[in-house]
């Protein structure tokens, strides 16, 4: 169970379905744009020093599926 120690906001919980749907569309179209741009060699270098959202795990069993 989750301990409700602060109010998460009912509206905020409900709206996430719609937020996720919009996000899905944006990510999908960005993915296509990325492929087109890298195909045409139009990729710009990243300015931000913060790396990526994904935590890299060296010993993650998920990477060994093919073995």
């Amino acid at each position, binding site marked *: 169970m989750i301990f409700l*120690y602060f109010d998460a906001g009912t509206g*905020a919980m*409900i*709206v*996430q379905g719609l937020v996720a749907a919009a996000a899905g569309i944006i990510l999908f179209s960005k993915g296509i744009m990325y492929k087109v741009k890298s195909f045409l060699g139009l990729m710009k270098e990243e300015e*931000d*020093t*913060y790396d990526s959202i994904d*935590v890299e795990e060296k010993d993650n069993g998920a990477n060994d599926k093919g073995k």
Partner: protein
Amino acid sequence: MTRESNFAHQASFRDPSGYMFYDGAILRRAINPIYFPQYTKLKETGFFATLIDKGLLISHEETSVSKEQIILTPEKIPFITNPYEWSFEQFKHAALHTLKLQKYALSQGFILKDASAYNITFHKGRPVFIDTLSFDFYEENTPWRAYKQFITHFFGPLVLAKYHGTDIFKMMQTHIDGIPVKLIASMLPKKTKLSSTLFTNIHLLAKMESKHKEDYKAETKIANLSRKAQNNILDNLFNYIKNLKLNEATEWGDYYTKTNYEAAAFDAKKELIKEWTTALNPQKLIDVGGNDGTFARTVLDKVPHVIVTDIDSNSVDHNYRQLQKNKETNMLPFVCDVLQPAPGVGFNNTERASLIERLKEYAPDVTLALALIHHITLSGNVPFEKSAEFFATFSKHLIIEFPKRDDSWAESLLVRKREFINHFDFYNETNFEAGFQQYFTLEKKETVAGTKRVLYLFKTKGYGG
């Protein structure tokens, strides 16, 4: 420091899972039995170990375990900065860090149960998550309960800063649980409704929140949200924030090309500071009004921990970028207006300590105040003895630069007083020394070659030796 043993930390009371307390001078974390299942699982699955190993979460040691309480001792952080003291880039990185943690937690069957900006601070040159008890079990297909908090603490302030400048972050002082969604929505230009990210995450959220605000019995059914859908929200927010830029962002104006003295004098000043500072062998140093850290960097390899503050968020940003580029781990920049330092805010006015209290606790061995006193005195109209009192509150040694009346910058500030210029006749070396000697003893004094500026080394009265 005299502090009662087992004194609970003033900022640690909102979460019933545990609390921080001072065991003498050491800050520890107590975990209550209500959080034991989560803690055990987080520890046994190696979740904590991975995050600590990656530098994403502050490290801790398990000090004691009993049926009633588990005690952890986290790594000590020399100085805590708060969201209203961050530059744009720092605020961005804190937000990205939070999303990264939530995404990883989700992949491991956990969630971040809150997304408070106060759970992040800057340590060793990068953001780090400091609330070890913020993780909970993920329940399949539930939305992220800290989503709204993420918007009010991070996304909202960042988007507002884009349109209104980084002064917006100061609103975090008056809204300790983040800027209300409705207020964020009302302050954004209408055109932001055309962005699907801003429309859904802010405008639609504000609408839904006011629609459901009378759900007193919490009986509205919460819709399901798949893990994939939640990841989409996180990825999209991450991408959006990563690309966010300030509208007003002027390119770094290179302050030091605007100095009123020659390169040789600039180097002479650097040498003098280096020489005086090194002789004091400080462990901790603060440069107040230190711009992008140019002068503090001359002693960075000799001082284990260095803080550089500036009123200009752009300078702090520039410093932050430099330290990330150079991988400097002992430099902490943050935004501070000396004439209006961050107050104590939150419950009891003590939840987030004032800047002065934090500086007193930090107790720097050396305080640098270069090209600052003329601003405090002539722009802020602060008498010398009041400035001296401010520095004496937290400093042991003070290296302070005094631009004489005929220094072109002091001159410019003086002429802007127009008919009131005579009110500032007191601005001279003699009065400066008299004012500061009320709180300090004068140790050294030297004119910086090629300038109309004098460098002083003062020692605070009452500090032995």
